[in-house]
């Protein structure tokens, strides 16, 4: 992805094309932080350029844009998350405009309120578009700040201890994980950091790690004390999308009773469940074979999944910027970022 920020064009459609185009452009998947940032910028432009009278309009505008982008990059769940976050902020902004800042707004996740559901959304009809635009622009911008800070926050959660032997996967593709390890090294003296690579003898991992290939994991696991995995998306039940190959690592860890930690910044916490396993199978990378061979295997199916779905029970803890969370308690964080009404929408 050459430039993730939308260009300074002023035709919203152009921006949209560029955005979704950039999503599908890269040969290897861009790291999700970049995607998240790109999405935020995209949304900012939408809010700036699109026309909307009241909150409903705005939400619809956002939804259409969301639909469009996920149709072209169905596997980029992060885009979805960011959009939904933005929608929640929009609702809040709307409320703020309507009932003033300090007025207490009932938590939409309070069960009784959800039961209440007396459609008093009549308020939404009132035209607040103009007023919202300004405030919203600011609040959305805050997401960017939060995104940038998320790394530091995650790093501040110290889970590594003295003389740990840590096994990691996909360090080269996850800057967050790399950042985490680097800063951890500064404070703690670890025995060894093994970085697993899906290729054989590829040493692309950072220099302070010792590279092993995926097939060596089971053997290596015997002297590993902690496993650190990058997370692409966490689902409310605590299961997660992780780079393909993580599943077998997690199983190996489970067999040797080694705790598995997942690094999941807030924008990776999805409020919805993975539509069957498809969403994981869905993302397929290039076939990674020399053309000659590939062509002779043209009528065979070449598997190169991007993600594994790792069930909650294989994971010990998620390290998110708002703290270390048990998989079974992941759902708690959802309320902080999403509005239930947005989630009932079929996307």
């Amino acid at each position: 992805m050459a430039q993730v920020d939308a260009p300074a064009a002023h035709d919203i459609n152009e921006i949209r094309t560029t955005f979704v185009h950039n999503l599908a452009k890269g040969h290897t998947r861009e790291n999700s932080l970049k995607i998240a940032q790109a999405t935020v910028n995209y949304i900012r432009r939408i809010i700036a350029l699109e026309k909307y009278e009241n909150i409903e309009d705005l939400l619809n505008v956002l939804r259409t844009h969301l639909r469009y982008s996920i149709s072209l990059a169905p596997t980029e769940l992060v885009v979805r998350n960011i959009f939904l976050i933005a929608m929640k902020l929009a609702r809040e902004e709307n409320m703020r405009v309507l009932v003033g800042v300090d007025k207490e707004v009932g938590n939409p996740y309070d069960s009784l309120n959800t039961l209440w559901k007396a459609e008093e959304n009549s308020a939404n009809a009132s035209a607040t578009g103009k007023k919202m635009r300004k405030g919203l622009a600011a609040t959305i911008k805050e997401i960017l700040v939060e995104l940038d800070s998320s790394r530091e926050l995650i790093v501040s959660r110290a889970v590594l201890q003295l003389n740990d032997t840590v096994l990691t996967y996909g360090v080269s593709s996850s800057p967050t994980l790399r950042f985490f390890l680097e800063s951890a090294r500064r404070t703690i003296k670890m025995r060894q950091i093994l970085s697993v690579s899906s290729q054989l003898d590829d040493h692309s991992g950072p220099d302070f790690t010792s590279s092993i290939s995926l097939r060596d994991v089971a053997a290596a696991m015997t002297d590993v004390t902690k496993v650190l995995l990058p997370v692409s998306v966490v689902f409310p039940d605590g299961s997660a999308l992780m780079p393909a190959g993580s599943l077998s690592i997690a199983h190996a860890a489970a067999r040797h009773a080694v705790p598995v930690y997942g690094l999941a910044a807030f924008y990776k916490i999805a409020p919805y469940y993975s539509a069957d396993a498809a969403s994981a199978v869905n993302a397929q990378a290039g076939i990674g074979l020399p053309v000659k061979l590939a062509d002779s295997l043209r009528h065979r199916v070449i598997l190169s999944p991007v993600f594994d779905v790792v069930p909650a029970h294989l994971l010990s803890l998620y390290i998110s910027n708002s703290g270390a969370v048990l998989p079974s308690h992941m759902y708690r964080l959802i309320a902080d970022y999403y509005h239930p009404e947005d989630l009932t929408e079929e996307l």
Partner: protein
Amino acid sequence: FSCKMPPKEDAKNQDAQRLSAVIIAESFEPRFHPITSDKSFGDLAICDVRGIDYSLRWLSRCDIANVVIVVSEKHAPAYHSIESLWKGVFDCVTLVICQNAHSIGDALREVESRNILTGHFLLVPSPISFCSSTLENQIKAFKQRFKKDRNAVMSLIYSESRGDGTCVAINENGRMMAFHSQSDPSQLDSETNEFRATVTIRNDVVDTGIAICSLQALAHFSDNFDFQTRDEVIRHILVNEDIMLQYVNVDVLPSFESAISVFDYSGLIRSNSQLISRLFFPLFPFKCNKNVLINSGNVITSGRQRVRIDGWNSFVGENVSVGTNVFVTSSSIAKKCTLESNCRIVESIVSEGSVIGEGVSLDQVFISNNVIIPKGQILPKKVVIGPNVKLNGSIKVKEGSFISCTPPDEDIEDSVETEKLFDGVYSWIGKTGRDWWSGEWIGREDDDGDDKKDDNKEKEGEEAEDEEGEYDVERVFTSEVLDSLRPALTDKISQETARQIIVEINSSKIAYNISMDRVAALLFVAFLRMPDNNVFSNLKKRMDNYIQILRNYYSNRDGQLGLLEGLNEHLSSNRESFSPLVAKTIHHLYEKDILTEESILGWHEDLEKNDPMIPLVKELIEWLEESDEEDEDEEE
């Protein structure tokens, strides 16, 4: 169309300048006209997506500033939407609308006349061209070359393939020495046919058609108005190398990158299945507001509906109704199609709105829009069905034919034989071995009218299709060796001639890049082929005469095995005449110490039990084995 052009830059900092790309949105291939009818070739959908959209998508990954799309007047309207869709992605998308272009040549001339190209450009000769690579390195390399030497005017992008590709001679620094579009080195057309050691001949690569060109290359078209195809320009450059000092480079993509541009139906089918099996990743069937899902087995479905087909590596568009037990593999089914129960579709394309009847089986068939193939209709391979054709289920369709609702129009009618199947349905078949399915048609008439050459070229082409290209090379090689062997000679050949002969054989070896052991075999085949060798006395004499040659090639065991292999091949080709001579020949060679007993025995062991050779050499082998036993005993 408005467009902000980058300021004209002088050639000095051309290497800083980003490339433009020129896409020819039309196909000037007459065989495509009937199926594209009122649309441009670029509009032809692959997996429900316009072909040209893939090309543009690919280009957008490359470091391309401006895109120039050349389209004919009557197709222009459709392209304004394309322009607006993509102008966000490139600095600028320009439409060049030309009145009556009949070839790539004309199209490029048009572009040249507009002079909107300011520097190097990427020539995409077919609107349906995919590439998995961003060509970053190739472009860089080209720029560097050009900086050093302004005469490196063009570099052609080749990709590796399974030896069924172009055959090209390249020198040590990737410079093209000779070029031919059939995999038949004997027709490497180049005036300077000297093969230095530094020249390698590759027939394991295929021309993707994509080329990086400098403005000089473009100039050739405008200078010479009867150039139709890119290849003509290349030939022109090669031939006049010593006059113009210009040359062409060949850049072979790394083994993990693939590229293709479509010029015929086989290419179309191939590109389709390769695209689906992700050879051009990240290029992929994509569609706005329609979820494109990869289901297990790499069955790509578009839209929300859940189709249930057996098979894999296939694309199924939206609103396709599928019967039970439908098998689809390496094929794409466009939207609104109907597949009735038990039909079987392999390596085919079914375009929008067509109906495939119950139990119909398609293998390598292209089906255009709104075609109806009723139950019971049998279609052979390599058939193209034109738009709106309704078959009745019982008619005979010939392999390699084109089925249309209309008789051919004048621009093609003299090159096809037409047959009326029943009213409203005609079958076209290319004349004089012209294959509707694959091979070149365009620019041939203008070549130099030498039709015979063309035809056998065509045939070689087909053989290349059947991957017999190699065998073919060997045949030519053998005959050449046969000449070199000077069959006329009757008495013992002198040191001098021996040397010459060996040199000649070796040079042809290089020319056809034949492996050493094959040379060994083929040489002996050639040797046996020499006139009146069917009488042993002559043959014996010959063997004595050519003893030096034989010594030279059959000193080591492999060589000897090669010899015997050759003997085998010769036998298989003319059994009755040669079989009586086999044993004698081998024995004589043994006597002459050309063959050692071990190699003979070794060779004999490797023969299949039922090999016709076995009985012929039975005694000989026994005899050898005995003698072998003996000296083993001696050693005791």
